């Protein structure tokens, strides 16, 4: 390392530019973006297996009302259920805890402070929201269009676009995407901001899952919904690791 690291004693512009270089060096030492992306990617792909393992077909009596059954009286219906509210709630909480510990320990080992606190606080708030949503769905089942829906006192129409958007927002999109936005602000990383926005777009825009040829009643019905964001997160982890690892070697 040369003495060029010390701010220049020349023109004020040069001094400010040198301070900018030092700031960037500190930020590079603090960043470990690949780690939460890797964990969230593994968690999302793990959700496919959990959906498969928890898949069950139950008899429902009486049949829930539906537009297609207006002229037919059915006494027994079957409903496919899958997924575990515990998996997502506990998994997301564990990812946050692991990320916080990793950031703090790594920053301390490298000789800098860690700016992770806002990320953790956001995570705690979101885990509560996600847990409430997951447990509500676990207790009441996935609402059918036309059924009245009372979500903690909020009257919603399950068929409405707004309700479906809220459902997606309070799911993985919020639990993974919003903390990534906070992390991009904490790390002052434009690349992570763009990545988080792309992830949110992927989760919030209702993309058809018909491309996989897997029906809603299949044990693997979670696959088309989860594989795209899961692989996207893992590719992001790989990309950030490739960019940040050489910088780490430079900084050490």
């Amino acid at each position, binding site marked *: *390392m*040369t*003495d*060029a*690291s*010390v*701010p*220049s*004693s020349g*023109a*004020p*512009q040069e*001094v*400010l530019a*040198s*301070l900018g270089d*030092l*700031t960037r*060096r*500190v*930020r590079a*030492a*603090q960043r470990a973006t690949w780690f939460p992306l890797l964990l969230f990617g593994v968690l999302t792909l793990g959700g496919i297996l959990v959906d498969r393992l928890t898949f069950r077909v139950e008899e429902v009596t009486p049949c829930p009302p539906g537009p297609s059954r207006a002229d037919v009286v059915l006494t027994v219906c079957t409903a496919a259920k899958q997924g575990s509210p515990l998996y997502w709630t506990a998994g997301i909480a564990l990812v946050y805890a692991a990320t916080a510990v990793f950031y703090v320990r790594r920053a301390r080992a*490298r*000789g*800098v*402070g*860690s*700016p992770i606190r806002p990320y953790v606080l956001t995570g705690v708030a979101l885990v509560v929201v996600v847990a409430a949503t997951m447990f509500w769905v676990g207790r009441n089942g996935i609402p059918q269009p036309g059924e009245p829906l009372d979500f903690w006192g909020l009257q919603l129409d399950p068929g409405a676009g707004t309700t479906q958007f809220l459902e997606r927002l309070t799911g993985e999109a919020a639990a993974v995407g919003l903390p990534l936005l906070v992390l991009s602000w904490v790390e002052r990383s434009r690349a992570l901001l763009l990545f988080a926005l792309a992830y949110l777009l992927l989760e919030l825009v209702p993309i058809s899952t018909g491309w996989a040829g897997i029906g809603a009643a299949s044990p693997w019905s979670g696959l088309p919904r989860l594989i795209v964001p899961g692989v996207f997160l893992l590719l992001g982890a790989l990309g950030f690791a490739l960019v940040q690892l050489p910088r780490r070697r430079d*900084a*050490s």
Partner: protein
Amino acid sequence: MTEEHDQHPVNGLDDVVHQRVRLGILTVAHEARRVEFGFLRTALGLTAGNLSQHLAVLEKAGLVAVEKGYEGRRARTWLSLTPAGDRALRDEVTQLKRLIHLIEQGGAAPEG
């Protein structure tokens, strides 16, 4: 306009803060929130003795707080900005930006 703003920005620069190594120390400490001696030494490309001298000046001026301890058997020295240090750095950057603004307008020379 206040008297402070009427002053030429050169007169607003604090000699303790404006010295280039100390300005670097304050910048790193501000961004890192808490920084270890070894990281500072590497980032600024200084010898341990040289860095210690500058840290002593900053500590005496009340701009940084130094905390010594051990991690295992390894001695570690951490420093962080005091509120006064944070203000001093912000003032310095403001004065530098004013100076750049003046230079760009062609009025760099201080009066009197």
